């Protein structure tokens, strides 16, 4: 079993799940699209589910690296959260299938996959909760605010990613307004709506 075979199978799984959903995708479909024998699938993955989760883990690793990197480059909150949000939008633009797979399709793979997906969102809880340290009145902010906002963001994004024409970058100010408003007040939230996106730097 070679790395190339494993990669081909993961690519085929991704393609088919996006096209027809996980339920309607069979191991033999995946092997056929990858151009390998079903036995090669079995050599790489213990199950259909394991292959799907491998696809998710692969994307999640890249996604986290890019988003954390953007967050780390800004010294203060909410500038760092905003940078992370635009990094998410950019990643979604550059990896539309990965975004759809991780956000939407993983919900219907298995319970373990659902847990993985939720854990993927929760890695960013700290970036939201960092607002408490710069809030004018931290004690007035309920303890579960970050969890609730993260839950809302996940659902709001899931809904939009299912649609045909979602512009993640255009939506960042709307989401920033909600999060910043919760920690710094409604005026600070409203200011987010007017902040233009960063200039697009295309990596050559």
């Amino acid at each position, binding site marked *: 079993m070679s790395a190339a075979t494993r990669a081909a199978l993961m690519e085929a799984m991704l393609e088919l799940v996006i096209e027809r*959903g996980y*339920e309607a995708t069979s191991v033999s479909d995946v092997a056929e699209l990858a151009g390998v024998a079903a036995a090669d699938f079995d050599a790489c993955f213990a199950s259909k589910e394991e292959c799907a989760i491998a696809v998710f883990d692969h994307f999640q690793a890249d996604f986290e690296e890019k988003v954390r990197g953007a967050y780390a480059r800004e010294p203060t909150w909410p500038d760092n959260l905003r940078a992370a949000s635009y990094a998410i939008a950019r990643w979604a633009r550059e990896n539309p299938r990965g975004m759809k797979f991780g956000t939407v399709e993983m*919900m*219907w793979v*298995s*319970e373990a996959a*659902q847990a993985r997906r939720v854990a993927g969102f929760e890695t960013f809880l700290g970036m939201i909760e960092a607002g408490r340290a710069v809030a004018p009145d931290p004690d*007035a902010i*309920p303890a*579960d605010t970050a*969890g*609730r*906002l993260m*839950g*809302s963001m996940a*659902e*709001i994004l899931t*809904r939009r990613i299912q649609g045909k024409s979602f512009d993640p970058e255009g*939506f960042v*100010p*709307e*989401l920033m*307004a*909600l999060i910043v*408003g919760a920690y710094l007040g*409604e*005026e600070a*939230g*409203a200011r987010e*709506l007017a902040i233009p996106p960063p200039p697009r730097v295309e990596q050559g």
Partner: protein
Amino acid sequence: MVVPTGRHGLPADIVSEHQRARIVAATIAVVGAEGYRAATVDQIVKAAKVGYVAFYELFEGKEDCFAAAFERIVSDTRAELAERVSTELPWAEQIGEGLRVLVELIVAEPERARLALVEAQGAGREAYRRYEEAMDEAVPKLAEGRALRAKGAPELSVATEEATTTGVAWILQQMLAEGESGSPTETLRAATRVALAPYLGEAAAAKVAAKLKAR
């Protein structure tokens, strides 16, 4: 009226209405106990005390009877809200009363709440779509709050109402997860603050919330 199981001389449509109701009740119980994925038509049929033929005359399979159970719970909830929340009340009080009805329904019937709030999200594409649609029903009522804001008030995100429906759902899901150790009144007040704060400000929202108590 409870239709006895077994053969009887009642009209076919009455029988199938009651079988449908038993299957919906059984779906709620079985999904509550096993979760959607592990639940089987076999378990549902046994719990409902109907025959397989009767089941498949009414439903195509697990997904179908789950959808019926979800729709049943949503329509019952809608009816409770319509009955118990007077539209004569000021808007903020309507929101608080509505949330009180929801919290009390969860306390009274946690299995139904779990199916509608938790299981529906993991029961497939169609179920999730229905879940989203049900949550969207609250948006117009919430959005009435926008008209109450002072002129020159800071602009609101377009996703404000969605943040409220999803945020309140999250709070209610936490309450379900906490079970016995949760506090319905605390949940109600937290949910009310979330719903009202974008339109009334934190202080006014907290004031309305503090007056609420879940039975």
